[in-house]
């Protein structure tokens, strides 16, 4: 079970400023929990962002990306009301997709 992302897409001219926050532990596989047990590697490997269904960013990540990761990008040729969709997949195969509508600034 994953928690929803927070996606904010704001129009500045014809550029959508997209700010995505994901809830994910991004475990490096080196950390020990309170009991001293090593927490297994668990991180988002891929993030795909689409604009009105067309892919605009395809990201590949390592475990070096921080916990509860943020991804900011800018998309040219955007209009208010268009859709931004984000999908992540982690190394355990868990996936999540969320969407937002581009808002005027």
């Amino acid at each position, binding site marked *: *079970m*994953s928690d929803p992302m927070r996606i904010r897409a704001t129009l500045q001219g014809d*550029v959508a400023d997209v700010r995505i926050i994901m809830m994910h532990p991004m475990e*490096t596989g080196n950390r020990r929990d309170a009991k001293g047990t090593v927490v297994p590697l668990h991180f988002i*490997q*891929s993030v*795909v*962002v*689409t*604009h009105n*269904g*067309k*892919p*605009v*960013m*395809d*990201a*590949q*990540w*390592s*475990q*070096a*990306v*921080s*916990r509860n*990761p*943020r*991804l*900011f*990008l*800018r*998309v*040219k*040729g*955007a209009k208010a009301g268009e859709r931004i*969709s984000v*999908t992540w*997949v982690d190394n355990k*195969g868990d*996936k*999540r*997709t*969320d*969407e937002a509508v581009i808002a005027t600034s």
Partner: protein
Amino acid sequence: MKRARRSFLKFAGGVAALATAAAAGLLRTAESWAASWNKAGFESKVPADALKSLGATNAIESRDIVITAPDIAENSALVPVAVTSRIPNTQQISIVAEKNPFPLAATFDMANGAEGYVRTDLKMGQTSDIWAVVKADGKFYVARTEVKITVGGCG
């Protein structure tokens, strides 16, 4: 369960949309994600190997890449890094933390109007240069900046 199912359905829709771009050779299909994740690159222990995995061995230093990051980071697990590429037709940005155990941190492919800009946060093991490796029109460029990590002290 309900939530997971809904995600899956949405995801399936996304796959269809992605297929168009994949056909154009811009991005990988969703199905091939796990397979095409740059395993060799992400498991490289030295930056040179990471660059090799990207095909960026001959990357040229460029002043048209701006890395925005703190000179001194107060929390090594949260180091904000933004990369802006002013190189025309920027199609990919990778971020490398030179002295991390696995230096290649992330690769971002851009298409369909995405500007040459990306921002995220990294974990850094120690004070190190951060490299931004940019691919534009098939050629590779690189820029770097140092981030000092303060550790220790208690509380």
